[in-house]
């Protein structure tokens, strides 16, 4: 097996032109594990490892791909959907079990090597380590398949969650602030996208008007779409959409940010199969085609990003993606931006100008008809708010909408292109999918 960490795959600069592999890479399968609130630390059938194996098997089954055909594995091996939690997100050490659960791998961490050993992949030649989160992984896999680094690639995104309050402990229990935290933590910023985005959101309301509570229309719609997503946390746990009163009366976190503006951490795993458009023709399922991938990682110019900075960043994300896909805002049928905190999604909607929404217009857009059966089926996936913090609903819904298999969520407008992301204004990536390769 060859691991290629030197592989140059990112499309993270302005002005790169149309992606050279546009339409030549396809997604041919996906699979989801059950989505639990937490793993109990005991039941090995519901560990992150067991759930990841399940997700991989479902994705391969849907695509009609055998283990021997898989020659690439791109698996995020960080704690709880990314390293942003620092030491506060780590649960080890713990008592371990018999192989393959004799280390943290398989329990709360998954990497390609553990999967190769446990599932018996024999022909994997591309299995990079240090893989980023799914917002970028899908780009890495797309480029790897397009460049011929591998031809059938599993993309796996596990998100672990265990008992206890989320990200309490570790650095967050420390009386001292070290490194970059010395500039934020003494004043109470524990770090994360809640803080990064709440100030630009406050400035947004001051600049364009509106109230924080206007987000309720978007949040409720995410919950409704989540109930239409059979594998998601809300649907499988019968979490009915909240009322306006529920939202307004809910617990403040970083006031005005409320608990219902935040996604629900879960224990789950998802897998996708990427392959060449040529191979996809012979596979079991209907392919959808990758029209572009793009990434961004913008440096903060000072302590806290402000509205101007966030709007500039999202403008640049949109320009990169549209240029690389050879498409414009009017060409995008399905739009599934990230919603881990409800306060950031308007920046994407306006930056990408989906359905003509310009700066300052998102809240009034939310108050209109954004249901999946209406003319503006915004975030038809239900995102994280409607499905739990899997960070994968945006991708799966986009595939299903293009295939026409979204069931009760199937939009009634045209569904030939889909833009999806796990992305924050400052970092992450976007993926443009098409029903047709061109």
């Amino acid at each position, binding site marked *: 097996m060859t691991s290629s960490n030197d592989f140059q795959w990112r499309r993270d600069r302005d002005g790169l032109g149309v992606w050279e592999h546009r339409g030549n890479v396809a997604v041919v399968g996906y699979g989801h594990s059950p989505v639990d609130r937490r793993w109990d630390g005991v039941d090995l059938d519901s560990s992150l490892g067991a759930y990841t194996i399940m997700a991989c098997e479902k994705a391969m089954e849907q695509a009609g791909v055998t283990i021997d055909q898989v020659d690439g594995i791109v698996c995020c091996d960080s704690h709880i959907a990314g390293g942003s939690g620092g030491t506060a997100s780590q649960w080890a050490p713990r008592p371990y079990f018999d192989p393959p659960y004799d280390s943290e791998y398989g329990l709360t961490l998954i990497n390609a090597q553990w999967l190769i050993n446990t599932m018996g992949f024999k022909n994997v030649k591309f299995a990079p380590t240090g893989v980023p989160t799914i917002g970028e992984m899908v780009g890495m896999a797309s480029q790897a398949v397009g460049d011929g680094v591998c031809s059938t690639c599993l993309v796996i995104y596990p998100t672990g969650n265990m008992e206890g*309050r989320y990200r309490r402990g570790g650095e967050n229990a420390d009386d001292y602030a070290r490194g970059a935290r010395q500039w934020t*933590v003494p004043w*109470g910023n524990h770090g994360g996208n809640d803080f990064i985005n709440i100030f630009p959101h406050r400035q947004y309301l001051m600049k364009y008007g509106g109230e924080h509570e206007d987000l309720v229309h978007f949040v409720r719609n995410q919950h409704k779409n989540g109930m239409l997503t059979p594998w998601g946390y809300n649907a499988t746990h019968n979490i009915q959409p909240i009322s306006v009163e529920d939202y307004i009366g809910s617990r403040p976190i970083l*006031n005005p940010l409320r608990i219902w503006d935040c996604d629900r951490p879960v224990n789950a795993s998802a897998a996708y199969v990427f392959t060449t458009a040529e191979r996809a023709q012979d596979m079991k399922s209907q392919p959808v085609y990758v029209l572009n991938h793009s990434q961004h990682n913008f440096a903060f*110019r000072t*302590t806290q990003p*402000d509205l101007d900075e966030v709007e500039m960043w999202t403008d640049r994300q949109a320009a990169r993606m549209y240029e690389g896909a050879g498409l414009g805002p009017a060409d995008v049928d399905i739009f599934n931006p990230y919603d881990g905190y409800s306060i950031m999604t308007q920046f994407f909607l306006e930056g990408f100008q989906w359905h003509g929404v310009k700066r300052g217009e998102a809240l009034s857009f939310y108050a209109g008809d954004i249901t999946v059966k209406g003319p503006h089926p915004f975030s038809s996936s239900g995102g994280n708010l409607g499905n739990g913090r899997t960070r994968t609903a945006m991708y799966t819904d986009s595939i299903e909408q293009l295939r026409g298999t979204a069931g009760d969520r199937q939009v009634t407008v045209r569904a030939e292109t889909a833009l999806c992301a796990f992305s924050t204004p400052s970092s992450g990536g976007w993926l443009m999918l098409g029903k047709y390769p061109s």
Partner: protein
Amino acid sequence: MPKIIPVPDELSQPFWDAVNERRLIVQNCIGCDRLQYPPGVDCRVCESATGVEWKEVEGKGHIAAYIVIEDGRLNRRMPDQPYNLALVTLDEDPTVNFYSNLPGTPPYEVPVGAAVEVTFEEVAPGQLIHEWKVVE
């Protein structure tokens, strides 16, 4: 409850030394003449090879926005909840901003747009941090 204590490192030691002398310094880029805070090895705007130098600033600013932390994750600050977290822009360069708990300003009663001036608060014996107070 005291605030969390910053731990100076090689890059930040001059900054915290100045704060402990009740002075506010930030970096100034020799190449593009922009102020920079938090400090970095290079200028984050122009990445000039000419480097950055420390410069004392007047310590006057304005409140751009604020939130109230009601359910944060930092153990040491939990007894303080709810407390203000304001975004303060520096008058000498409003693209430079700082956090502040606005000592003396009750939670939720933050005068956005108001002028503030730097003050210093002891968080451990011999260790101050920079804070900002509304100018009456």
